[in-house]
């Protein structure tokens, strides 16, 4: 028996049945499931995207909602009912102010290099800050910059979007206003501008010093 016949031997199940399938798969999972994964698990010829549309409608306003996170989907409880779930609450390690600000800068300026984060915060990124965010799986490495030193860049992850209930990084609160105000621009400082933060207290000053060609990094 072939698993992927050229022309399906059987017609795909009717849409309401496909909705049931998507519902079952998403309900059974704790994490998010991508459209591709859904299609792979459902019988050949199914249209999970259409089924998801139907499901989203069905669950609108319920105690459990269908949420989109990037390219993936998941059921999540409605935010207004959080007070009922105290028993399930996970105590998360409290993030330092530095970690929170660094996370926000990465989310709003991504892809962003360490030197750029330091330029915005005006202070060296301390050890452990990026480590902590990587461990939470809220940030990841992006492409290296094509600038001297080829610094790595940082991006936020799908788990970040899931945690903060965002459909995509475009839905970050206040993004449009910040952009309109020019506060997300890559604006190079004038030469001899505000002194860049030293890598003081950093593990290896010589090596971790922010790029002196800072300005050039903001050219995209």
């Amino acid at each position, binding site marked *: 028996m072939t698993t992927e016949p050229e022309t399906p031997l059987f017609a795909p199940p009717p849409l309401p049945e496909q909705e049931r399938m998507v519902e079952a798969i998403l309900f059974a999972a704790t994490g998010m499931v991508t459209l591709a994964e859904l299609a792979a698990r459902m019988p050949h010829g199914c249209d999970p995207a259409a089924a998801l549309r139907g499901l989203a409608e069905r669950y609108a306003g319920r105690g459990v909602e269908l949420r989109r996170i990037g390219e993936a989907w998941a059921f999540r409880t409605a935010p207004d009912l959080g007070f009922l779930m105290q028993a399930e609450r996970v105590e998360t390690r409290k993030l330092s102010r530095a970690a929170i600000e660094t996370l926000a800068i990465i989310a709003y300026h991504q892809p962003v290099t360490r030197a750029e984060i330091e330029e915005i915060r005006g202070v060296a990124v301390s050890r452990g800050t990026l480590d902590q965010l990587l461990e939470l799986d809220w940030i990841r490495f992006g492409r290296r910059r094509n600038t001297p030193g080829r610094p790595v860049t940082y991006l936020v992850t799908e788990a970040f979007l899931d945690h*903060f209930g965002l459909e995509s990084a475009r839905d970050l609160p206040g993004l449009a206003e910040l952009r309109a105000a020019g506060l997300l621009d890559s604006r190079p400082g004038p030469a*001899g501008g505000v002194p860049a933060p030293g890598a003081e207290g950093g593990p290896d000053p010589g090596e971790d010093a922010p790029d002196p060609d800072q300005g050039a990094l903001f050219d995209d």
Partner: protein
Amino acid sequence: MTGADAERPPEPEGRDWEDTPLARADRRAAEALIVDVEGFEGPLDLLLALARTHKVDLRRIAVLPLAEQYLAFVEQARAMRIELAADYLVMAAWLAYLKSRLLLPPDPEAEGPTAEEMAAHLAYQLQRLEAMRAAAAQLMARDRLGRDIFARGLPEEVERRRTIRWDASLIDLLRAYARLRTRDEFRPWAFDRGDIHGLDEALERLRGQLAARLGWLPLDAFLPDGWRRGGPRRRSATAATFVAGLELTRQGRAELRQAEPFGLLELRGRAPE
């Protein structure tokens, strides 16, 4: 930069705090800030706090008075013998420079950015930092998974026929590599020391040498025999002897002098008092 600049009297030597009511307010603010200087994350953070105490609208911030407040703050910290990190002093030097450029008539011959451009960039940085803080606060206030929103608590797993999926996260990979690459760094050091003149040795030597003669001699003269030819041996011995010289000077057993930057370093012993 602003109209206020013109009215400002020339800066008196040894600034008197009580000359205007504004200065008194500044002083109070600066004192309040000094109390928790530990709480600031660098000069930019401090500048933002100073800006906030006077102006709500960062878009209209006047850099000159801000620079003055910052300089006053650093001055105060020094007077109270609070040790400020080098970052703060670098910023103070830069702001003093900016201030002088803002007060002087622009030099048409001068190259590079104008004082106004530099001030505008500082104002932009402050606005941007403030905006990122606000964004961070908004982000953290969202309904969050595991706190306000919950995932399925009882994921279903079918019992029969398990397939094992091997997994590893990026952080595991990076840690593994870091572990491998640093493991070697510990091992051979003890055996690699042939060309390193240790600080303890240098201290020992220098102490003896300085006790013996009291005239000024160049640092080179104190290098041990066999370490004077060029290369890593000489570099190591020079570094160790220099640090030893600094240490003995600190202890009051030696004196160190240098006529000009990068000039010859000279050292002599000092009789203990």
